[in-house]
């Protein structure tokens, strides 16, 4: 059975959905600065290291997965979820300008993925090294 009201509702939902796209709230560089501010409070902090970030990205941390298990060894490439095979858009901002631009999303995924890879939350130093590494990746 066809119900015109449903179609009206659907059209309305589509229009509202398009209007509700969140604005870009952050930039990767801005995030790196706020991580630097956070990390500089810890003893012995001497800046972020892209090389350390690369090691962190590619190695496992006591669990089954590394960052690269899903995001692949090349952060500029498309990834694939290690369990579900779901396609993952590139992680490096050079290959995917949407990355690290929305605070809520950044926090959610750091929390979730650090938990999956390290069984704990990541420190500001780890996040900063990781981001510094990603920012060195060319498309």
């Amino acid at each position: 059975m066809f119900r015109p009201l449903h179609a009206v509702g659907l059209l309305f939902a589509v229009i509202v959905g398009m209007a509700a796209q969140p604005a870009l709230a952050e930039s990767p560089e801005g995030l790196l600065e706020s991580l630097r501010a956070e990390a500089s409070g810890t003893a012995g902090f001497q800046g972020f290291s892209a090389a350390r970030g690369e090691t962190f990205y590619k190695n496992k941390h006591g669990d089954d997965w590394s960052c690269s298990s899903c995001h692949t060894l090349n952060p500029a490439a498309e990834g694939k979820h290690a369990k579900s095979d779901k396609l993952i858009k590139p992680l490096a901002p050079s290959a995917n300008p949407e990355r690290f631009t929305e605070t809520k999303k950044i926090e959610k995924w750091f929390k979730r993925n650090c938990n999956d890879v390290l069984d704990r939350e990541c420190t500001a130093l780890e996040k900063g090294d990781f981001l510094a590494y990603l920012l060195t990746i060319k498309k």
Partner: protein
Amino acid sequence: MNIAGKYLLGLFAAAVLFLGATLPVAQAEEDEYSGSRATIGAARPSNPKWVSECGACHLAFPARFLPAESWREMMSGLDNHFGSNAVLDEETAREITVFLVDNARRKKSRDASGNMPKRITESRWFMREHARAELRVKNNPKVKSMANCAVCHIKAEQGDYSERNIKIPK
């Protein structure tokens, strides 16, 4: 109403007719396979948060694949979601739960041992539908898991599980 108004109304009516003519056809077919007829004739239920949150890690599995009780239990245990911590903020979790429960499978659903199914793939209806397919894809590395709907159901992302849109990879 002026002429422009009538014109717009006409356009709108045409759009509505078009949607009405295209959606229900595809719908009627796929519902045979989920065992639920509740959604025939209506647009496929969707919710932006369900798409963005559930669909971030795996296919956003249709609500009609599990009964309401299964969704409620799953959504209250996201801190251990099949081994992953997939906790959502409260508001998002509530909205998605309501969406899933509202559009859940209406028929009774059980797993092989007669319990409430925890996974879609352990539901009796699913195992019945896929008994032959499972044998065919058993050692196929491209399939990996029976939960990987979109490998064979090439339009699963659009909610289309119809027979004509199945293509089993070689």
